[in-house]
């Protein structure tokens, strides 16, 4: 017979693990990290409250009820990710691409998981076992502790979402099997229990195929709007080579093969998405990186000596910078080692960045950009900020006045900061906040440009392009992008907007 504290540990480990994975799967689908985490954890806790309350309303047979609860949780947890993937695939095919559909699907599931999880602790405390409530609670907390450490840091990078819930589901099934003896279940029912468990485990073989269809559908979805018939879309989709998905400790990295984009967008293009947001595209890479590097250096008015790249682990900005012989030192700061590894080894990407990360003038640092600028010792002539947009509070830190003020302290007197921002929206949008934040950090002069990609430059002196020197440097496509957006900037400055700061951050929501 199993002791109550280890059981309490195991059960809370599995339940919290399901919750963590479900929250992450929902963030992946909706792109709004804050809302997804908050609502799924909230609804899960609400479910726990309900469950604990309902459990206390009537007389219970702790062992038998616990066995029932664990069966429900093991099955629901085991299929949590597949359910969400199937649901999202269906929503894509139906053409409902609002976040609402995803939340409407995932939150009741989190509530259901939470509801049955809520039964666990009162039932365990109800067993007459000689253990004090404090000891059972302690084991329960310890299980939760282990899940919050083990799941995001170790299990997810290793097994991704599907694999993680499968492992948790099996553990949960083992826990349920341990309850058979104390619940005094008959031999016949024990046999049913075990064979049913093994049969469900056999369904594991379907999961990779489902994940593949899901991932294909996500990137195929722009095409689904134009396609008339479901059957023809489905046939095209089935024939396509699947995107490659990697899970790093920080994000999902999806590599799209060229034929994928040629089918979806009509042109061959090698693309890399991080957390489903386009980060590298062979087709537009030249425009984006030429605009940032040559545009930035042109605004600076001289070839820089020392340059800092924050983000940009793909190595494409570094490659463009290396075309200037005057640049002696480039520091590149990227948080995710998986991105750097990919930039150094993945063939298509190596062709794009020409091995820039291995150049002697480029110094790669695997670090948090905020911490790097806090500790930086030298000054830079040019700082290029190529970071993901602030979809979460973590990323929002890299758009605060403190961050920009730290960068400003490490700029040469005539130095220039150039930041990639989301394209300005007609109404709302984050631009006013970002502009007010740059101002609060002490930058006196701002300059915005870019029609396809949008950049804001900040310095302490007036800024303008010198097209005479700029035109020979860039391609025609880039030149069309290097158009001043002074009116949008002026408009943003006039609009009300909070200053984003570390102790008083702004919630930006999902930005593309």
């Amino acid at each position, binding site marked *: 017979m199993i002791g109550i504290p280890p059981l309490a540990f195991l059960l809370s480990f599995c339940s919290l693990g399901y919750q963590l994975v479900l929250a992450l799967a929902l963030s992946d689908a909706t792109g709004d990290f804050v809302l997804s985490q908050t609502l799924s954890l909230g609804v899960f806790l609400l479910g726990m409250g309900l469950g604990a309350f309902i459990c206390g309303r009537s007389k219970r047979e702790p062992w038998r009820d616990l066995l029932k609860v664990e069966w429900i949780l093991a099955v629901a947890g085991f299929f949590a990710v597949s359910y969400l993937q199937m649901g999202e695939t269906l929503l894509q095919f139906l053409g409902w691409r609002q976040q609402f559909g995803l939340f409407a699907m995932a939150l009741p599931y989190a509530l259901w998981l939470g509801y049955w999880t809520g039964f666990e602790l*009162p039932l365990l405390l109800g067993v007459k076992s000689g253990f004090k409530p404090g000891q059972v609670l302690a084991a329960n907390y310890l299980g939760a502790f282990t899940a919050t450490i083990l799941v995001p840091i170790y299990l997810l990078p290793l097994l991704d979402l599907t694999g993680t819930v499968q492992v948790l589901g099996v553990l949960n099934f083992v826990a349920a099997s341990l309850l058979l003896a104390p619940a005094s279940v008959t031999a016949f029912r024990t046999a049913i229990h075990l064979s049913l468990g093994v049969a469900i485990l056999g369904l594991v073989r379907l999961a990779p195929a489902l994940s593949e269809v899901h991932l294909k559908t996500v990137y195929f979805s722009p095409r689904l709007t134009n396609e008339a018939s479901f059957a023809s879309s489905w046939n095209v989709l089935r024939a396509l080579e699947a995107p490659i998905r990697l899970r790093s400790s920080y994000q999902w990295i999806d590599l799209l093969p060229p034929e994928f984009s040629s089918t979806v967008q009509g042109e061959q293009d090698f693309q890399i998405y991080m957390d489903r947001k386009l980060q590298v595209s062979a087709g537009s890479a030249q425009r984006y990186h030429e605009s940032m590097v040559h545009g930035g250096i042109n605004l600076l008015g001289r070839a820089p000596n020392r340059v800092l790249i924050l983000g940009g682990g793909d190595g494409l900005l570094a490659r463009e910078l290396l075309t200037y012989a005057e640049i002696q030192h480039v520091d590149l700061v990227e948080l995710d080692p998986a991105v750097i590894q990919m930039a150094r080894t993945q063939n298509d990407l190596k062709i794009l960045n020409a091995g820039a990360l291995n150049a002697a003038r480029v110094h790669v640092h695997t670090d948090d950009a905020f911490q790097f600028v806090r500790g930086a010792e030298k000054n830079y002539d040019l700082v290029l900020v190529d970071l993901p947009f602030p979809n979460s509070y973590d990323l929002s830190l890299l758009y605060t006045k403190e961050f920009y003020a730290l960068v400003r302290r490490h700029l040469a007197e005539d130095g220039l900061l150039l930041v990639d921002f989301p394209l300005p929206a007609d109404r709302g949008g984050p631009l006013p906040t970002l502009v007010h934040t740059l101002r609060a950090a002490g930058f006196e002069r701002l300059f915005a440009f870019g029609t396809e990609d949008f950049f804001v430059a900040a310095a302490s002196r007036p800024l303008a392009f010198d097209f005479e020197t700029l035109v020979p440097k860039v391609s025609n496509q880039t030149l069309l992008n290097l158009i001043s957006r002074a009116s949008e900037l002026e408009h943003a400055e006039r609009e009300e907007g909070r200053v984003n700061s570390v102790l008083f951050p702004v919630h930006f929501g999902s930005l593309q």
Partner: protein
Amino acid sequence: MSVAATSAIFGYCGLIYEFVLAQSLSILFGHSVVQYSVTIGLFIAAMGLGSHLAENFHDPRLALWRTQLCLSLLAPAACVFFWWLAVSGHLIAARVVAYSAIVGIGFLTGTELPLLLRLRAGPSLGAVLGADYLGMLAACVLFPLWLLPEIGVLKTLFATALLNSAMMACLWPRRISLAIPIAGVLALLIYFEPLIREAMSTKLVGG
């Protein structure tokens, strides 16, 4: 005051402290995935220890009153202290204080529920636990969607400590003379929060 309502407030305060600490650590030490996991992990482990040792206290009401006293003083003092250490560049000292604060606040939070379960006379075990989860629900929706972006990290911290001092008064009305000055100091801190925030911010960027 009813045991279920108290349980909800305890659940709320515990989770808010956890969020404030996790957010502070990711601002000050970077690598927020790790900081969040470490904070929540340490906090929950300390809660486990707290709930384990709570069985040793004889008078649950007195012990709860003391928990609220310690939380209302320790939580804001420790947080402001490690913030100040970190923004002035004493990063190792700041980490030591921050991790001690996580363990201390987690421990105190962990003792609350078992003590409260011993005080329970009317409501069922499930109702008390259910109320605790509801308090946590309120915290985890309010913190990222309202408290963090509209109130800010520090004001949220002080207001939560103020709630702890109010609980002191509820648990032991006759000793209200001790709860009032603590509440007064916390109210002053809330009033002057913009000044403290700006001072931290200036110090952080090395001004």
